[in-house]
């Protein structure tokens, strides 16, 4: 009997797939390094240069803080407006992308495709495009962040929507609710905390993104990165870096605490 059961034991699955995956990954890494001509030797050779740069960045030009404060505030305002408009736009998009809310497949799949398309365009490129359309200033930055946030929030929200409990939805169908009532009573209460959390998270990302949009002329603190780097005023660059770091940390912390409360 014992021998019999042993014979029937299934063979463990082959590990070959895992080994092959590892080999392929290593090959890709090695190939990338060769193609970009990056070697550890170069990294070490470059170390003194990096140290020189760091020396020039220190001490930071403390007086410069006051001068760039208005630009920093501009950056935050840009992130705030971009996130808000993006969050509003994301609501219908997410509802149309969620298969359990929108039953018509011919709407769901094209909407998801458009959403993915939107997410393939990097925010900096989007800002550059809008600069070309609207000219220099804050407006192209806000527009770029709006589309960028819409993409993130809609993507996160539609995935969360597809995971909501369907029982309450069924109950709303049974009481004779129309689609809008069905969404307001069955869907919204299940998703609103998640949605708020996604919006805050996107705001965190947007403050960081907004900080560099100035590089392509879309306003905010990024403009001063370009100026100070251009004039080799590295002590001022480090002021901006520190300032950005402080603001981002502060906003991340506040947003994280808020999100903990929400969920």
């Amino acid at each position, binding site marked *: 009997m014992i021998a019999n059961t042993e014979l029937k034991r299934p063979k463990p699955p082959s590990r070959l797939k895992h080994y092959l995956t590892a080999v392929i990954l290593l090959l890709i890494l090695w190939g990338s390094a060769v193609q970009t001509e990056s070697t550890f030797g170069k990294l070490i050779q470059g170390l003194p240069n990096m140290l020189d740069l760091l020396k020039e960045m220190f001490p930071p030009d403390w007086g410069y803080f006051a001068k760039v404060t208005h630009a920093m505030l501009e950056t935050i305002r840009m992130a705030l407006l971009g996130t808000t408009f993006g969050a509003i736009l994301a609501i219908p998009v997410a509802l149309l992308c969620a298969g359990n809310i929108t039953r018509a497949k011919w709407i769901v799949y094209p909407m998801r495709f458009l959403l993915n398309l939107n997410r393939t365009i990097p925010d900096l490129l989007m800002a550059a495009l809008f600069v070309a359309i609207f000219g220099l200033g804050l407006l192209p930055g806000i527009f770029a962040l709006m589309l960028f946030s819409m993409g993130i929030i809609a993507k996160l929200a539609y995935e969360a929507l597809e995971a909501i*409990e369907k*029982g*309450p939805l*069924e*109950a*709303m*169908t*049974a*009481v*004779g*609710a*129309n689609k*809008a*009532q069905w969404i*307001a*009573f*069955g869907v919204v*209460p*299940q998703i609103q*905390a998640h949605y708020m959390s996604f919006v805050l998270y996107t705001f965190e990302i947007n403050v960081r993104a907004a900080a560099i949009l100035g590089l392509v002329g879309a306003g905010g603190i990024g403009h001063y990165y370009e100026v100070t780097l251009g004039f080799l005023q590295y002590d001022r660059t480090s002021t901006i870096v520190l300032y950005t770091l402080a603001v981002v940390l502060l906003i991340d912390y506040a947003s994280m605490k808020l999100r903990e409360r929400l969920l």
Partner: protein
Amino acid sequence: MIEMVNVTKTYPNGTKGLKDINLTIGKGEFVAIVGLSGAGKSTLLRSVNRLHEISEGEILIDGKSITQAKGKELRMIRRDIGMIFQSFNLVKRVSVLRNVLAGRVGYHSTLRTILGLFPEHDVHLAFNALDRVNIAEKAYSRADELSGGQQQRVAIARVLAQEAKIILADEPVASLDPLTTKQVMDDLKMINEELGITTIVNLHFVNLARSYATRIIGLRAGEVVFDGPVSEATDEVFAEIYGRPIQKDELLEEPVA
């Protein structure tokens, strides 16, 4: 009155969920549908308010065909049919009161309900409904703070606030313990008797069906194999419905009083 005429449900893979069902359920009846899991109890119940579509036949609610109704007409028929589910189906993150008021949405304009502007009359109705199932003090609690039995009573209150003429209860006590089972079944019985609401309940336990229903419909493999008053539903009849003698776990232990 509910009339089912030649109702058949065929699933896309060809299996028959319901086979040529003809039933008439009169106003004020308390009907228990019994049968094994997979016999089609849930499919039958859910086809009454068209949560499930049927393949052939027609279902009439007070003379109007729900099978052919569309849009607003369908919603108006559904408004008169309350439903109670095994898993309660409340929105957990909102208050009990709002869950009960959700039963009122069919009576008002979209804008009004979305903004939550229910008239005083509705709030009154909602509290009366909660009173009837002895849970009014929980009106402002979040639904997920309540126990299973309490949540099911909120679901009953939702149906009451809906002013439904028919109640469909799909395994309403399957996730409850014996004591709360008795409370929920008592509530359903009381509503049926006092308000004359037609009640159809899917039940798993034989003795619950016997002690609460006035009429029992036995389903087996999608077919009605018994339909008659409780007095005729003997152990032999149940053995026929289940295709074997009743087992001990199909009898719910009597809760200690």
